[in-house]
């Protein structure tokens, strides 16, 4: 059997911490090879070693049978290895084309031939059905398109060994199915792929083989055909994991959040939320289903006071909080798990303890008369770290050093412990492993059961379906329909999210239109 990549007994240490402990991974030509492991297991590290960003302390790498010594990404690129990084490696204020050609720019008499490159990019993007706008600035395009730009970067360089580090973490179902289509195309062309994802179903759908690692150690490699999600999960976590979180029926009580005719504009003055109305009651979880960029972020920012409201009203338990300061809003009973945990959720350079105090530091017991009582904050932090199983050396460790999964648990702990009437959870499980996801879902449901309201925004249909009691579908800035999980399915939701009316959706379902919504 011919291997294009062989990573043999790779060992990588950070200081005295061993991130990769003699891990072996062998990639066959033309296969999709999944790499599975918990947050912090060492997947990205292993791949960064292969891509030349890290130098391994031990082991050897063979590319197409020949021993290779990959000292930096340049070497990897030359060997035809391309990597789509977990945290996008894109220059925000560059155009798509500029990002793609960076490093080997086509020249026309001395200057960069942007026009020519743009053509080539457009060509490639058509060829693989990636549909990206070569002239758009990265900061202006959706995460999904940024993802595809990352892919184009590798294709542009003619890589035939592709590493995808959690490509689907931040994609909508549509985008995911598109991505899967793309990967299949690539394989058809004889390329080989290593795929990191926390979504077992994806692995089952697309991969040929799976290598599982746990806490830096290789657990083993299995043929996808001969395994199942449950087995994979227990392999990586080391215990049984339940996927569909149990939850009893909801008993909605009085109204907590009431939004009437809300209109919100983005920086450029374009209306992103259009005359939107929504109401949530205590004891229920309302899921907002929708494709990224349909106004979810603006809606949440408006509710939480991070963005100005153009027109309309937002009431929280009857109190008008339209265009109030964030603090006044949080104090009137809103908890907020922000979409971007690194930008809004945490002060990464603060210890995790300070971060847990971020919303409450200014009032007793955490401070009295303007004087901080850090010991009180730490005590609280330690409670939360214990209760929410945040894996860290303790309250003093900088938030930066925690895995996103654990960063996320800390944030959830912080917000839930403030005991808000309404908990807004935006993409709360993005990038987390199944264990962490299960944990977080359980917490959201607990909130509901204790008579709180939860507003869940997610691009993951199954998440919305599993967790919410009611699903409000957002399209082009307004709620076009509200459905009950029991009475709908992924196809219908998908169609609604694409802007079709329920009738149309139903009709199409009859005609048995495509399983996958392209």
């Amino acid at each position, binding site marked *: 059997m011919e291997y294009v990549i062989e990573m043999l007994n790779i060992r990588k240490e950070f200081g005295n911490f061993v991130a990769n402990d003699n891990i072996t991974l062998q990639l066959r030509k033309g296969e999709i090879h999944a790499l599975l492991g918990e947050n912090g297991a060492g997947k990205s590290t292993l791949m960064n070693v292969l891509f030349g960003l890290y130098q391994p302390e031990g082991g050897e790498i063979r590319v197409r049978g020949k021993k290779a010594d990959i000292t930096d990404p340049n070497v990897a690129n030359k060997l035809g290895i391309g990597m789509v990084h977990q945290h996008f490696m894109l220059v925000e204020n560059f155009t798509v084309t500029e990002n793609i050609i960076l490093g080997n720019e086509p020249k026309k008499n001395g200057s960069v031939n942007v026009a020519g490159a743009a053509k080539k990019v457009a060509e490639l993007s058509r060829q693989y059905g990636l549909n990206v706008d070569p002239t758009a600035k990265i900061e202006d395009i959706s995460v999904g398109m940024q993802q595809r730009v990352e892919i184009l970067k590798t294709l542009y360089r003619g890589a035939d060994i592709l590493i995808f580090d959690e490509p689907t973490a931040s994609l909508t179902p549509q985008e995911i199915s598109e991505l899967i289509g793309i990967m299949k195309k690539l394989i058809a062309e004889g390329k080989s792929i290593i795929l990191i994802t926390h979504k077992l179903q994806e692995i089952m759908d697309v991969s040929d083989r799976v290598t599982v690692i746990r806490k830096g150690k290789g657990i083993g490699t299995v043929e996808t055909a001969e395994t199942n999600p449950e087995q994979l999960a227990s392999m990586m976590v080391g215990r049984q994991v339940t996927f569909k979180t149990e939850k009893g029926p909801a008993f909605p009580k009085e109204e907590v959040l009431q939004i009437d005719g809300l209109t919100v504009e983005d920086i450029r003055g374009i209306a992103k939320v259009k005359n939107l109305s929504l109401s949530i009651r205590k004891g229920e979880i309302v899921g907002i289903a929708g494709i990224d960029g349909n106004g979810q972020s603006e809606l949440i920012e408006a509710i*939480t006071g*991070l963005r100005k409201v153009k027109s309309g009203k937002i009431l929280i338990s009857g109190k008008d909080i339209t265009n109030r*300061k*964030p*603090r*006044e809003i*949080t104090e009137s009973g809103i908890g*907020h798990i*922000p979409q971007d945990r690194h*930008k*809004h*959720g*945490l*002060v*990464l*350079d*603060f210890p995790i303890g*300070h971060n847990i105090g*971020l*919303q409450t*530091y*200014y009032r007793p017991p955490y*401070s009295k008369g*303007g*004087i*901080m009582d850090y010991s009180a904050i730490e005590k609280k932090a330690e409670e939360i770290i214990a209760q929410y199983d945040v894996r860290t050396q303790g309250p003093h460790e900088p938030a930066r050093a925690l895995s996103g999964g654990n960063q996320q648990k800390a944030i959830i702990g912080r917000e839930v412990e403030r005991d808000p009437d309404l908990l807004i959870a935006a993409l709360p499980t993005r990038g987390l492993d199944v264990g962490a996801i299960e944990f977080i879902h359980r917490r959201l449901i607990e909130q509901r059961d204790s008579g709180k309201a939860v507003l869940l925004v997610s691009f993951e249909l199954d998440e919305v379906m599993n967790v919410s009691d009611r699903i409000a579908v957002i399209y082009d800035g307004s709620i076009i329909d509200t459905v009950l999980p029991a009475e709908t399915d992924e196809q219908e939701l998908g169609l609604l999210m694409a802007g079709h009316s329920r009738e149309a959706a139903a009709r199409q379902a009859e005609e048995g239109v495509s399983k996958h919504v392209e």
Partner: protein
Amino acid sequence: MSNRMINLLVPAIAVILGLLVGAIVMLLSGYDPVAGYIALWHGIFGDSYAIGETIRQITPYILAGLAVAFAFRTGLFNIGVEGQLIVGWFASVYVGAAFDLPKFIHLPLAILAGAAAGALWAFLPGLLKAKMKIHEVIVTIMMNYIALHVVNALIKTWSGGGDKTDRILESASLRSEFLSSLTDYSRLHYGILVALLMVVVMWFILEKTTTGFELKAVGFNEHASEYAGMKIGKNIILSMVISGAFAGLAGAMEGLGTFGNMYTRGGFTGIGFDGIAVALLGANTPIGVIFGAVLFGSLKYGSLNMPNAAQIPEEVVQIVIALVIFFVACGYAIRLFLTKISKNKGAK
């Protein structure tokens, strides 16, 4: 080798390296480094007078360093300490000379005047940054020149066309018979206590108060701070104002301690700019600032004695000082080296 150990060794080695290279410079330019450094040593610690003057020199550096450091902790680069120092100097002298009050009121009042003036001078850049996102560096640079010319003009107006202000009254002076007799007529004054007190104040604000918590948070991550309900603008302005107050105090130390009056100035004092290095050498921590200030102050004052006692020209001395600063700044390379050898030792 333990980390604490290394942390202590790095600056020490840096200073030594700087002095070594400085010695080479002196040799190449035909001067005797040994004599030079002996002179430097005597210039700093030679006798009670030298020590007194060295401490006097360190005093404004501590405050200027605190000013820069404090702003940096909130993510602001206050390059306008120089100007804030100048207005602080003038304000303190004005109050010190224009009013006649009992010492226990007059002195604090004069000191406060200095702080207030500095704070005021830093308020505008803060405001422009907070409200219009105008970069503080450029505004503070401009404010430096404005301070220079405006204060000169004020001195003229006040002194009726003269070149210097009246002398402050005894009741507003930081100097004391006791200290100068202790140090053989040096100009050592109680300002050093003010400076050290301010070190504590900065530490207290940053590490103990909610304000400090907010200032640091905003400095690290504006978005998260806003999310957490902090007022970004307010914190930016506050930080500049406090920073400016420290700078103004540095001026007050010159006005009420070292000089007792103020002359029209042809140029800047330089203390404000050196304060930038002082702060960063001290990693923007209150204690670190003391280290930076001691280094700068000692070199600056002690080096006066090198031309005096060893006939080494001013210019060479300046080169040596610059080299020391340079090497201290390059501490990382030394740290790297130290950890390497300590590793190798560990390996064996």
